[in-house]
């Protein structure tokens, strides 16, 4: 299969949907000639023109809010927030308006809006451009929250998000933008709310999403090659809706669960996953506590050596896996 980057996969998804449906358009800061801060929409303005690839002033409330208004009146806007940290500036429009409009109006409104927002650290941009805030949005009924980890998923899930009649916050992974992976050339979509098992295994369920997936897959392969330990790597892909069944059945099989995400552990989405597992029929199968490895409880620091240590590392994830495998009650 051909390989393209995560950014190219996202661009393909947008372009294909825009070719198929005149109601779909892209707007945001510098999405036109500049191609977006990360080059995701590079060249799209040449094909679709500045009416459908709209550069916007730096006004996040108006960017998201006009997306909500356009969506409620018959368009299918894709809105790009340059860094997901800036969602905070448009929060009212997303959380109080877009997410609630349908329920508040008794089903008398449809808001087919996609908000694309790159997240994560590792770019040296420090505390205000590096957060992973996906759990905030998973807390809001009315939103869907996608966190794709591969080019194939990014394309298929974005196409589903664009076709979805609900507001979807689509967290793109900055450090994955340039990473290549196989992406089918023919038309396909990937449903929102369906987890993917990237690697089968019977010893432990490593539940992860977004940028942490490649790291977890490396560790799983390493442990298999070196020790014959078979770790099952499960990516929920969307955290709202959450594919509880796949997570639960994986843990019933393995008896051990480690959840890994880049976001700060405290209040992070791993806590929700842990609670779902603990409160499920997987509970009696557990041979060890459910554990989380997430970001340290600090803002993202600038210094590269510190920045590397603030998020889960190869060592911290690998040792957590080994500790859980060695766990004995009463030990």
């Amino acid at each position, binding site marked *: 299969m051909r390989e393209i980057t995560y950014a190219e996969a996202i661009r393909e998804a947008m372009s294909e949907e825009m070719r198929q449906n005149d109601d779909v*358009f892209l707007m945001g800061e510098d999405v036109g000639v500049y191609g977006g801060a990360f080059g995701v929409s590079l060249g799209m303005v040449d094909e679709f023109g500045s*009416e459908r690839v709209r550069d*916007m*002033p730096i*006004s996040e*409330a*108006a960017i*998201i*809010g*006009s*997306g*909500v*208004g*356009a*969506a*409620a*009146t*018959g*368009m299918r*806007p894709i809105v790009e927030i340059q860094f997901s940290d800036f969602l905070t500036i448009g929060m*009212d*429009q997303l959380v*109080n*308006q877009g997410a609630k*409009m*349908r*329920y*508040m*109006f*008794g*089903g*008398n*409104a*449809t*808001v*087919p809006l996609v908000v694309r927002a790159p997240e994560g650290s590792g770019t040296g941009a420090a505390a205000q451009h590096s957060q992973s805030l996906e759990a905030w949005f998973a807390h809001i*009924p*009315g939103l*869907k929250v996608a966190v794709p980890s591969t080019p194939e998923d990014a394309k298929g899930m974005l196409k589903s998000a664009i076709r979805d*009649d*609900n507001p979807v916050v689509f967290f793109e992974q900055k450090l994955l933008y340039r990473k290549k992976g196989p992406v089918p050339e023919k038309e396909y979509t990937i449903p929102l709310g369906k987890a993917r098992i990237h690697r089968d295994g019977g010893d432990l369920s490593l539940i992860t999403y977004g940028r942490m997936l490649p790291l977890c897959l490396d560790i799983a392969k390493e442990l298999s090659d070196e020790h014959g330990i078979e770790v099952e790597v499960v990516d929920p892909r969307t955290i709202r809706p959450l594919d509880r069944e796949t997570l639960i059945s994986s843990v019933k099989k393995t008896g051990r669960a480690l959840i890994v995400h880049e976001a700060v552990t405290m209040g992070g989405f791993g806590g929700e996953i842990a609670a779902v597992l603990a409160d499920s029929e997987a509970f009696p199968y557990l041979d060890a506590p459910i554990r989380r490895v997430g970001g340290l409880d600090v803002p993202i620091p600038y210094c590269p050596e510190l920045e590397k240590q603030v998020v889960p590392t190869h060592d911290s994830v690998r040792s957590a896996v080994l500790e859980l495998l060695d766990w004995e009650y009463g030990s």
Partner: protein
Amino acid sequence: MADKKKQHKNEELGREKLEDMLRKMQLIRSFEEKVAWFFSRGMVHGTTHLYIGEEATAVGATAALRDDDYITSTHRGHGHCIGKGIELNRMMAEFLGKSDGYCKGKGGSMHIADVRSGNLGANGVVGGGIPIAVGAGLTSKMKKQDRVVLCFFGDGANNQGSFHESLNLASVWKLPVVFLLENNTYAMSLNVAKSTAVSDLTERARAYSMDAHQMDGNNVMEVYHTVREAVEQARENGPVFLVSHTYRIMGHSKSDANRYRTREEIEAWKAKDPIPRFEQYLIEEHDFSREDVDAVGENARNAIEEAVAYAEQSPFPSIESIEEDVYA
């Protein structure tokens, strides 16, 4: 101020339209009085924001719209809904949290909406509807629908970031939006003179290269003609900003003890009540009789009583419906 000539008898408004405008003003007044009555007896849940005294603004402005034009509204939105032509029965049912309400009882007073008829909803967040109006204007422009969005908000909203961002964006993109600032003098308790750095609120629009006009918000004909012109300008050339000077006779919400203003000030504004003023105008300029205008008021009160009867017999939404309509 609008051209003085336009406040006088204008042939383009026939008797039927004028009577409809009076009817809607009376419906708003009666609706709000009924709402106040329900609250005074502890018969409803939550809070509400009454539009009494401001009826000329909602009615004059919405009368200037085409049926397919949009509005966005505010927490004080009952008047805008009635102006836009909402069904009273379903509106009253929503106010009482009933299943036949526009929002199936889940929105209540602050979220009455009828998207299909172009009413994009009241809004619980001050300034929250303004970016949404811009988005609706964008749809109209991109789909070449020729529809205008009339965006209502108050003096309180003119200091929100969403207001400034939206005016700028609508102006840059030349979107068909009429921004209508209802200056009812108070943002909850804060007088506009203490909240806002400019004393002439139309200066807000000049900062965004937008034409701006102000009007006597208690004069329904002046509001109608000013908004009418603004709507047609917006349809052709992009956004227009209007300031309607009016006054909130009742408290901000049911919790308001009116500590921030004087009885004299309220009485002075009551003397400028837009309804008797419009009635007088119809009698003097359009051959309405006193009996004619009184009948309009009487019919409006009856219509509200019928709406109450409808709403009271409507069931509360079922507990089973609690999780419906979160997602499409």
